[in-house]
C-alpha cells in the first residue's frame, strides 16, 4: 500500500498590512509550492497578498474568519486529513480568549480530534480532556494589544499526518534564525464521537 505524505501547514494571524509588513524571509524560503498538501489558516490575514501566497503553496487552502477579515469565511471549519478530524477557528469568538476549557468545549461541539485556533498570537500545543489543541501563533509575530508586554515571535506549524499519529513541527523565528521543535500526538482510535 502506498505511503501518502500528508503535510498540513497550520498558519495564521498575519495581520498584513495593519500590524506587520510580511512574514520573515527565512520562513518564505522554507514555504515553497509543491511540498505541502493542505493549508489550514486561522484567519486575520487581512490583506489579499497573504491569501494569494497561501494559495500559491497548494490548492487545498482552508481559511476561517478572524475579527479583521473582510471576506465571508466561516467562523469554524472541520476538515478530515487521513484519520484525523481537525477543527479550525480563529478564536476571538471564544471567551475568555485562549482559555483551554473554552477551547475544550468547542472541540467537543465540533466533534474533532484536534482543534486549531489562533488569535492569542502565542504558540500552543497541548493535550486536554482527550483532545489535542494547537495554536500556530502569528506568522509575522504581529503586535497583540492583549499581550502587549511580550515580544511576539513569528511562528507556524507543520503537521505530518500519519496512519495513527500526528507529528507536529513547530517553526519559530528567534534571534534571526528558524528554530524547529517536534511534538507527537497519537490519534485516538476509539472515541466518544462514535
Amino acid at each position, binding site marked *: 500500500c502506498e505511503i501518502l505524505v500528508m503535510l498540513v501547514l497550520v498558519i495564521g494571524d498575519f495581520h498584513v498590512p495593519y500590524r506587520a509588513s510580511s512574514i520573515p524571509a527565512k520562513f518564505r524560503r522554507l514555504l515553497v509550492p509543491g*511540498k505541502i498538501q493542505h493549508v489550514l489558516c486561522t484567519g486575520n490575514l487581512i490583506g489579499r497578498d497573504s491569501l494569494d501566497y497561501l494559495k500559491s503553496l497548494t490548492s487545498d487552502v482552508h481559511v476561517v474568519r478572524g475579527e479583521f477579515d473582510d471576506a465571508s469565511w466561516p467562523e469554524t471549519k472541520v476538515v478530515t486529513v487521513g484519520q484525523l478530524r481537525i477543527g479550525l477557528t480563529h478564536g476571538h469568538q471564544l471567551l475568555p480568549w485562549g482559555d483551554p*476549557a473554552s477551547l475544550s468545549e468547542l472541540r467537543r461541539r465540533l*466533534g474533532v480530534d484536534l482543534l486549531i485556533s489562533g488569535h492569542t498570537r502565542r504558540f500552543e500545543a497541548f493535550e486536554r480532556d482527550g483532545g489535542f489543541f494547537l495554536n500556530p501563533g502569528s506568522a509575522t509575530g504581529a503586535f497583540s494589544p492583549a499581550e502587549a508586554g511580550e515580544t511576539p515571535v513569528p511562528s507556524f506549524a507543520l503537521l505530518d499526518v500519519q496512519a495513527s499519529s500526528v507529528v507536529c513541527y513547530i517553526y519559530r523565528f528567534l534571534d534571526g534564525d528558524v528554530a524547529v521543535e517536534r511534538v507527537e500526538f497519537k490519534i485516538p482510535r476509539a472515541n466518544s*464521537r*462514535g
Partner: protein
Amino acid sequence: LFWQTRSQDMSGPVTEDQEKLLDEALSVVKLQAFQMKRCLDKAKLMDALKHASNMLGELRTSLLSPKSYYELYMLITDEMRHLELYLLDEFQKGRRVQDLYELVQYAGNIIPRLYLLITVGVVYIKCSEISRKDILKDLVEMCRGVQHPLRGLFLRNYLLQCTKNVLPDCVEEEQEDSGSVSDSIDFVLLNFSEMNKLWVRMQHQGHTRERDRREQERRELKLLVGTNLVRLSQLDTIDVQRYRSVVLPAVLEQVVNCKDALSQDYVMECIIQVFPDEYHLATLQDFLQACAELNPAVPVKNILISLINRLSAFATRDGSNGIPSDIPLFDFFSEQIAKIIENKPDLSPEDLVSLQAALTGLALGVYKDREDYVDKVLETTNSGLDKLGRLDSPTKKSVSAYLLQNMLNNGTLVPSSEQVEQLLDLVRCLVADPGADAAAAAAAATATNSLGGDPGDGSANGAGPDSEADNEDLAEEQSLLGRVVHLFSTGPDLLDEQFGVLKTARRILATGGGRRVKYTLPPVVYQAYQLAIRFHNRQDSDDKWRKKCRKIFEFCHSTVCGLAKCELPNLALRLFVDGALVVDKIPFDQHDTVAYEFLSQAFSLYEEEISDSKRMTCFAAENHEPLRSQTVHAASKLLRKPDQSRAVAACAHLFWSGRPRELQGAEMRDLKKVGECLKRAGRLASQCMDAGLQAQLYTELVNYYLYFVLQSAGSNLDVSQLSSTAGQLLAKIREILSGLEPSADSEHIHKHFEATVEFARSQSASGDATIAGLLAQLEL
C-alpha cells in the same frame, strides 16, 4: 527532510538515445576497470595501463550530452584513483618504475594519453621525483592538445582536481625547482584562461537554432571554470598585494577580452563570491572599471548589487571593523551607478530602482549617520525616474510599487520624518489621486480631527465607478503602502522622533481619501500603540513619558475617529477596542478615562452601525462596570433569538473573568451575575421555535454551566444552584432529543450532547471529590 528538491531533468528529443549510449559506455568502463584492477593485483603494470587506456578511451566520445559525459567522467576518474594509489604505493616502497612518465606518452590516443600523464605526473610530484615546477608546467601546457570544448574542459578539470594538494603555496622556493606560489598562480591562471576559451567556443558550435540548448549546456558546466578561481582562493600565500597586482588583473583581462556575456556574467559573480571582502575593498576601482567594459548583454546591475550587498554585510557584521575610512565606498558605487544610468538609455525603471535600493541599503547599513547619503539616493532616484521620460500613470504606479516591494524584500528602513516625506513624494502616484494633494493637505493641516479627501469616495476627480479589477489593483497597491509603514522606524532609541515620523506619515497618507486610508492608516495606529508601550518601558529615562503617552493616544483617537467617518465602522470599532486594551496596560494619569473613552466610542459605533452578534465578543476583555451591563443589554437586543441567547451566555464570562480595578487584578467571579446571565440565556433559548435549535442552545448552555462549576472547584463558591439548573437542562435536552426527527443536523446535536455528558462523567470520575459532588447533582 521535507525540503529536498527533485532535480528536474531537461529531457530533449534524444534522451533515450543518451541513456543507451551512456549505459553502453559505463559497462565498458566497468569491465575495463575490473580488468585493470586484476592486473594491478598481479603486479602486471603494463597490462593494467592498457586497460586504463581502454577505459579512458570512452572519454573520446562526441555523442554524449554534458550531463551524461559528467557521469561517465566521474566513474572513470574514480577508477583512476586505484591506479594512482597503486603507483604511489609502488614508488614509496622504492619500486620505481623506470621512465613511467615517458612510457605513458606512448598511449595511442591523446585523451587517454593525457589523463594517464596527469595521473602519473601527480604521483611523481607526491614522491618528489623530478621538478614539481616542471611537471606542473608541462601538464598544463600539454592539455592544449585537446581543443574540443567539452572534452577539454573535463580534462583540465581533472588536472585541477588531481593537483589540488600539490600546488606550491610558499613565497620562496623551498628546494630547487619545487616551485613557489607564483608558479601555482601561473599554472591556475593558464588553466583558467584556456578553460574559459574552450567554454566560450561552445557558444559558437553547431546550429543557430540550437543556441538556447547550448547556452543551457554551458551553464551546466560553469562550475568547471569557476573551480579555477576557487583554487586560487585556497592558496594561503596569496595576500591582498598579490591578489591586486597579479591575480585579479589577469582574471579580469581574460574576462573582459573574451567578450562573451555568459562567461562574463558568471566569472564576475564568481570573483565576488570566492574571494574575501577585504580583497574586494582593496581592488574596487579595478573591478568596477572592468564592469564598465563588459558586453552590454551582461546584467551589470546584478553584479553591482551583489557586490554592494556583500560589502554592506561585511561592514555591518558583528566584530567587523567596518569599511576603512580611506575608501569612499558610497561615492564609488554612486558614481558607478550614475555612469551606468548615463550609458544605458534603455535601462528599465525597475533596474534603476533596484540599483538605488541596494545603494540605500548600503547607506543605511554602513553609513548610518550620513543622512545625506539616503537623501542623495532618493534624489537621484527621483531625477532618474523623471529622466526616463514622461512615464504614463500605470507605469509610474508599477515602478513605485516595485520600489516599495524592493524595500520590503530588503527590509530597508526609513529612519526620519524628512525621508518619509521624500519617499511618499517619490511614490505620490500611489499615495493619492493627482490634484488631491494640495487641497487635501491644506484641509488636513487645519483640521486635525478629519481626514483629507472625500470620505468614502477617494475618486475626488470624478473618475466614475470603479471596476472589480480597479478595486483589486487598489487593494494591492495600498496594501504595499500599508506594509511599508512598518518600515518607518527611527530605531530603538529615538522615540520622540518616531512619533514625528508617524505624524508625518498620517498627514501625507490621509490625502489618499477613504478608499486608501483603510489600508494605510491602521498600520500607523498600531505603530503608535506600540510606541506608547515603548515610552512606558522607558519611563526611567524620561519623566515626561506620561504626557507623551497621552498625546499618542489623542493622536490615535483622532485618527480612528477619522476612519469611522470614512464609513469604516467595523475597522474603527476594532481599533478602538485594541486601543483600550493597550491603554489599560499603561498606567499614565487618568488612563482609565482614556480607556473608557475609547471603549464608549467603540460601543456607540457598535450600536449605531453594527448588529452582528459575533462582533460582540470583543468587549469581553474590558473591565468597566457600566460597559459591562451595557454589553449585556446590547446582547439581548440582538435581532435573532438564538444570537441573543448565545451572546447573553457569553456575557457570563464578563462577570467571571473580568478584572475590575477595585479588586486589583483579581478575577471578579461574580457567581450571582453569572447565574443570572445563564438563566436569561436559557429563557431566551426556550423562546426558540425550532426544537433542534433549542436542544443545541441548551447543550451549549450546559457546557457553560460545566465550565463555571469546574472553574470554581477548590474555591468556597457555592455552585449548587448552577449544578441543579444544569441538571434540569440536561433532562430537558433528553426530552427534546427523543422527539427529534433524525437528520444530519439532529445527529450532530446528539453527538454534541453525548460528548458533553461523556466529558462531565470523565471529570466526575477524575477523582476529585468536590467535583464529583458538584456534578452529582446533574444526575448523569
